[in-house]
């Protein structure tokens, strides 16, 4: 592709770590770094906060614009901006330009920025041509398609392709894998009962798949599904796709105690 040809190796990738990974599960960030470095990228991590989605989806456009301006500036020196999340990558790649429809100069900047933003796994496969990673994971896993990645960015086959190459891992079909888990950011709290009804169904589908591990590409959805399954006493482990692909599948799964800290 023209753009990638224009970029001189090593490709400088700015990791947009996403606020949830930054705060709750840094291991996903390190998994992303490993995958990108293994694929030959130079990874940099500019000082960052959040992509602005909570404000955007609460109707607070001024705050969202302020956050977007900062983010765009922070990543100015990068050839690409990659996030281990379809939702945040979708925000950067699809919604940032919409934020500045009334500011032509900023709109141009935001559109140029958007064009270099990608979700991690689709970036590895579609942009860098990665076909296989060297990783091992003992287990039977189901993959959940998080909504924004799937529908805004077309992330569907890429994670399945790479997961198929993980040694020891057997993938099973998850019925309704493309149906929302009920997370929806602030929705999960504002409409807790409704969100609960949706994730309860998801939890049952995961259980019915026979998998011992749930894999997805968005930490928000994973926290929601893991939290529900744990509340229901199910033993399924939830892991971010980057962790499994980076061979970090032995670390405690989401919501599990620290190794050695278990009481």
């Amino acid at each position, binding site marked *: 592709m023209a753009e990638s040809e224009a970029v001189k190796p090593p490709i400088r990738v700015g990791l947009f770590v996403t606020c949830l990974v930054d705060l709750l599960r840094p291991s996903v960030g390190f998994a992303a770094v490993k995958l990108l470095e293994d694929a030959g990228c130079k990874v940099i991590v500019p000082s960052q906060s959040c992509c602005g989605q909570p404000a955007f989806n609460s109707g*607070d456009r001024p705050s969202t614009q302020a956050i977007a301006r900062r983010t765009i500036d922070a990543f100015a020196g990068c050839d690409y901006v990659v996030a281990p999340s379809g939702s945040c990558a979708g925000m950067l790649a699809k919604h940032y330009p919409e934020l500045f429809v009334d500011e032509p100069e900023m709109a141009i900047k935001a559109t140029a920025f958007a064009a270099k933003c990608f979700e991690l796994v689709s970036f590895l496969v579609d942009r860098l041509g990665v076909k296989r990673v060297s990783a091992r994971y003992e287990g039977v896993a189901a993959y959940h398609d998080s909504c924004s990645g799937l529908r805004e960015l077309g992330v569907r086959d890429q994670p399945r392709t790479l997961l198929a190459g993980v040694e020891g891992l057997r993938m099973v079909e998850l019925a309704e894998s493309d149906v929302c888990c009920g997370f929806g950011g602030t929705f999960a709290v*504002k409409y807790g009962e409704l969100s609960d009804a949706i994730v309860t169904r998801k939890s049952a589908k995961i259980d019915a798949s026979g998998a011992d591990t749930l894999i997805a590409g968005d930490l928000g959805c994973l926290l929601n599904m893991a939290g529900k399954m744990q509340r229901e006493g199910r033993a399924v482990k939830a892991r971010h796709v980057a962790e499994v692909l980076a061979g970090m599948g032995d670390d405690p799964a989401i919501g599990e105690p620290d190794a050695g800290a278990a009481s």
Partner: protein
Amino acid sequence: MSLAATTPHFKDNVHEALTDARLQRALPHARNFIATRAAAAARLPEFEALRDSARAIKDHTLAHLDLYLETYERKVTQSGGHVHWARDTGEALAVILDLCKARGAKSVAKGKSMVSEEIGLNAALEGAGIAAVETDLGEYIIQLRGEAPSHIIAPAIHVTRDDVEADFRRFHRELPADRDLTQPEQLLAEARAILRDKFLSADIGLTGANFLIAETGTSIIVTNEGNGDLAQTLPKVHVVLASLDKLVPTLNDAAQLLRVLARSATGQDLSVYTTLSTGPRRPGDPDGPEEYHVVLLDNGRSAMLGGQFADMLRCIRCGACMNHCPVYHAVGGHAYGWVYPGPMGAVLTPSLIGVEQGGQLPNASTFCGRCEAVCPMRIPLPNLMRHWREREFERHLTPAVVRGGIGFWAFFAKRPGLYRFATDLAMRALHLIGRSRGRFAWLPFAGGWTRYRDLAAPQGATFQARWRAKSGAVR
């Protein structure tokens, strides 16, 4: 007046719906349309191209709506019909009641019409001593039950077969009590027999319209039961009640829209009956009404033209958005609290009854985007819902807790240095508290989350803190 909205109590409605065991047994039906739509779309290689073309047809029509409305009125008049313009519910009801009274009508046979729900027509007719006879099976069932439609194309989708049998036994007392009603066909036959008498005795037939065609002054309705044909050909007077966004320029345009309509709705290639009507019966016609009237309702739609919500006027009421909506699947249509449910209702309701009344609906979405992905008219439903949230935020209608929370969070989000420092401290502290279990069953300020699910404890220092420590050590 139009139906009173319970939309402001959406959360209570949700709770009620989720705890209604009978409703929860009926709701899975709505999911059946997912596979049929997908199969229909897959069978037609040009389906995606047709969606583009359908969108273009409606966009063009809406851009020149004044022109097409004038043409349409002229054509209806030329064919011997009458067009009545109604700015709002009150005017529409007045026109229809006047038509009924002037003809001494005792009963009105109705085809399915969501616009008639929007203006609360049945109640108004009954208030004037005129019987409203619903001829669509689903509409008939909910009329018996005293309910509103819960779906725009399958009004009784919230009712199970068992419920219908019980209702028929309750209301059709004149029939033998020991009759067999175990099969859906038997229920249909019974309803048909009862309705046929009412068709024949109705003074006025009232239908909605799926499309109004400017070129010919024709109205089109699609049904699967053929009740539309009967409702409009048997009585002496046919009244078409439609909103002005139903207009399309030509028959050819309507044909294209029909190709996406049924496929998106039920997955049929075409609905079983597509009925076109143009004016009253002409000399020599074997059948048809003696009078033909069109009541064209605005009710806030013209104000949407050219604005942020104009895309919504492309809607052809196929129902695909609600058939694919996780929120609709969980609670059904009545919880939305007014006439139009699902994603299309979440956008349209605040437009038609005001965001103060309807504002809950565009907020109650995860923005999963499945509605937009299947909408044949490519209406960006999540974006439009977000626009409503922006309007609320601008007008300070957003609840203070949410506004305060977002403000607090945004303060840090705009200041990455401070954000990094504060979050790192907080995450280390939470990690210490949560690490032995790995998660929290309860946390202050996170009650909305932990009431229903556990919350994973942070791993400790934030990614950014670890990264900086690591790269600092390397350098």
